[in-house]
């Protein structure tokens, strides 16, 4: 039987000490050629446009932003799934931005990726066992028998039955497939795991299971976790630090609690105001930003956010603000952050749960935990795979 050990040590994770950077980017740029007009110049999409960022060993760093902000491109650059147009990527101090495919292959053992869509990221013609074994085969890890054994251990570790190794991806639900994707990513024994929206395609209850799993695995395998996500509540729950991106640039980077308690950048503030809080007594959601994100083909002058920013002045249209330290280990790219920061304290606050709700949720928690400890009850997804019914 598989057993999902629910380690309690991750309950309130202390902030890790300022560990050294394991992965860094220096003025990283990635442009894509877009289909230009028939006779004109080729247009250029500035997907990632000058990102300097350090990821500390052992931390969970999240990159948040809306569609088209470049967060997925940045994630792929970090593990060199794509090559940068310019700038540096350093893994353990070594510049990997210009390494050849062959040189990169060895490094892929360390840098693994979990994709958003569990339906398109697993080869439908391979068994689950072969999918999980593949990274070990590629990196020539262990003998065949050892690899097979490892596959079964990994399956059990992510909460699936070891026998599932002989089945095919289509037999599993979205949540189970995401667990398979995670098992595959762990197979080569990575140091860094990058998840591109790893839980956003899942239903809330399944999402919570996978979040807990990722947190446990991070602890157990001593991983550095980089999460690309758009759900600010999930990010608050999982991250030590957060980088907010807008149109290819980082506009704010801070420790999670500091960022949520007092967002400095007007864009971060607008993101938080836009979230509908699941409580009827909470502040109303506010649609502060009008219009859409401008095209990355022709980003606005000066501060790229000035066209939608409620605090924008003439200066913002003319002069580009650089990411500057604003105390408390925080960086913000805004000319006006000093006057703007105070307007948004307490945005992420939720009212206390009403007494009845709080009491019953406590009951639910206590009894779910009790059932989980009972060896007679099933572990989370330890049931026969079924063809998922998607709506």
């Amino acid at each position, binding site marked *: 039987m598989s057993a999902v050990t629910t380690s309690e040590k991750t*309950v*309130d994770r202390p902030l890790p000490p300022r560990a050294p950077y394991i992965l860094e980017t220096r003025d990283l740029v990635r442009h894509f050629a877009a289909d230009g007009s028939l006779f004109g110049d080729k247009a250029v999409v500035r997907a990632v446009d000058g990102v300097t960022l350090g990821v500390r060993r052992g931390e969970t760093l999240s990159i948040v932003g*809306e*569609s088209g902000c470049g967060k997925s491109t940045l994630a792929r650059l970090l593990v060199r799934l794509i090559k940068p147009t310019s700038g540096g990527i350093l893994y353990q101090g070594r510049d990997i931005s210009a390494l050849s495919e062959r040189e990169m292959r060895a490094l892929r053992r360390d840098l693994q990726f979990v994709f958003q869509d569990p339906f398109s990221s697993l080869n439908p013609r391979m068994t689950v066992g072969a999918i999980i074994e593949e990274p070990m085969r590629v990196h020539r890890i262990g003998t065949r028998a050892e690899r097979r054994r490892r596959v079964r251990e990994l399956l059990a570790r992510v909460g699936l039955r070891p026998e599932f190794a002989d089945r095919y991806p289509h037999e599993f*639900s*979205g949540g*189970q497939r995401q667990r398979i994707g995670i098992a595959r990513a762990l197979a080569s024994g990575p140091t860094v795991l990058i998840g591109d929206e790893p839980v956003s395609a899942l*239903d*809330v*209850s399944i*999402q*919570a*299971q996978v979040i*807990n799993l990722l947190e446990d695995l991070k602890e157990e395998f001593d991983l550095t976790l980089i999460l690309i996500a758009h759900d600010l*509540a*999930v990010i*608050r*729950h999982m991250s030590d630090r957060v980088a907010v991106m807008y149109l290819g640039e980082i506009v704010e980077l801070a420790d999670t609690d500091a960022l*949520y308690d007092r967002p400095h950048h007007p864009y971060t503030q607008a*993101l*938080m105001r*836009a*979230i*509908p*809080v*699941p*409580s*009827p007594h909470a502040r109303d*959601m*506010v*649609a*502060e*930003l009008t219009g*859409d994100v401008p095209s990355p083909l022709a980003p606005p002058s000066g501060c790229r956010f000035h066209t939608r920013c409620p605090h924008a002045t003439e200066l913002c249209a003319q002069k580009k603000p650089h990411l500057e330290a604003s105390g408390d280990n925080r960086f913000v790219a805004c000319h006006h952050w000093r006057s703007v920061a105070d307007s948004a304290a307490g945005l992420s606050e*939720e009212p206390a749960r*009403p007494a*009845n*709700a709080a*009491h*019953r*949720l406590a*009951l*639910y*928690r*206590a*009894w*779910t*935990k*009790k*059932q*989980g400890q009972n060896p007679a009850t*099933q572990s*989370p*997804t330890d*049931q026969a795979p*079924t063809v*998922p*019914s*998607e*709506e």
Partner: protein
Amino acid sequence: MHSDADSNPSPLLAVDNLTLRFSSASGNVVDGVSFSVSPGETLCIVGESGCGKSVTALSLMGLLPMPPAQITAGSAMFDGKDLLRMPRREMAAIRGNRMAMIFQEPMTSLNPAYRIGDQIAEVVLRHRPVTRKQARARALEMLDRVKIPAAVKRLDDYPHQLSGGMRQRVMIAMALANDPALLIADEPTTALDVTIQAQILQLIRTLQEETGTALIMITHDLGVVAEVGDRVAVMYAGRIVEQGSVDDVFIDPQHPYTLGLMSSIPSLSKREGRLTTIPGMVPTVDTMPPGCRFAPRCPFAGAECKAAVPPLTDLSPGHAAACIRAPLEAEAHFDGAVA
């Protein structure tokens, strides 16, 4: 059995015991669902994939292919007529007119080959005795009302020329073009970014206040429920497990599934330790457990729960839950575990 009648004296739509199955499956996809909506009211139907919320909406709109779908029991009274037994032609006269729907993915629900102005005008022409010119004027008026900038220029755009948020505005313009009494919105903001979602939800709320349209909002997001809903029905595996005013359900949640959903959502305000999840997975239509369908995943379930389907029972006026254990704290046995 629970009845909505007392809390809702003159509903616009009254669904009673809707039961629906697909010929390929052994269980009911929607199993005895009852709810009602009054003019100007917003009812949210919340639940996860496969709970039957979208199928319920589609069946009301007459948009489910039958076969394979088959309605085996129930009624849905709208304007004094049963939507579930309405001839096709009569349904076509109501749909897009007295009753309209917007979908999650505006790109697939707009016709890519037609200009958006023409698509909105067509809906008007179909149901109103107006000229082409008048219909086009109405299309322009609607684009203005959904706050599409430079609406005159946008009339001749094709859907692919618009952003996701703008397309959803066009869908809303089209749905509201004939002043429907009932609007059904199926996850209208799920595919959108949060800042755009906030714009669209605010727009829907404003338009609803102006027009008095009744709204059924289908969503998986309890945040959206708290933001726009007056009442909420929580669905699980084809059944409503809890129903009440949004305040009742958030302040006094009763059903263990509602509690499980709430505890699965991370908090925006602080990290509350490890998330408490709902173990296991939603059953498929072929593996529906007997009795309470949530029992196999419920920490409070006992043999009685698996023996019979728990009826949706009022716990206070207008607030009902389908759980024989509710209220949980009444059983000292459960309450003991908290300390």
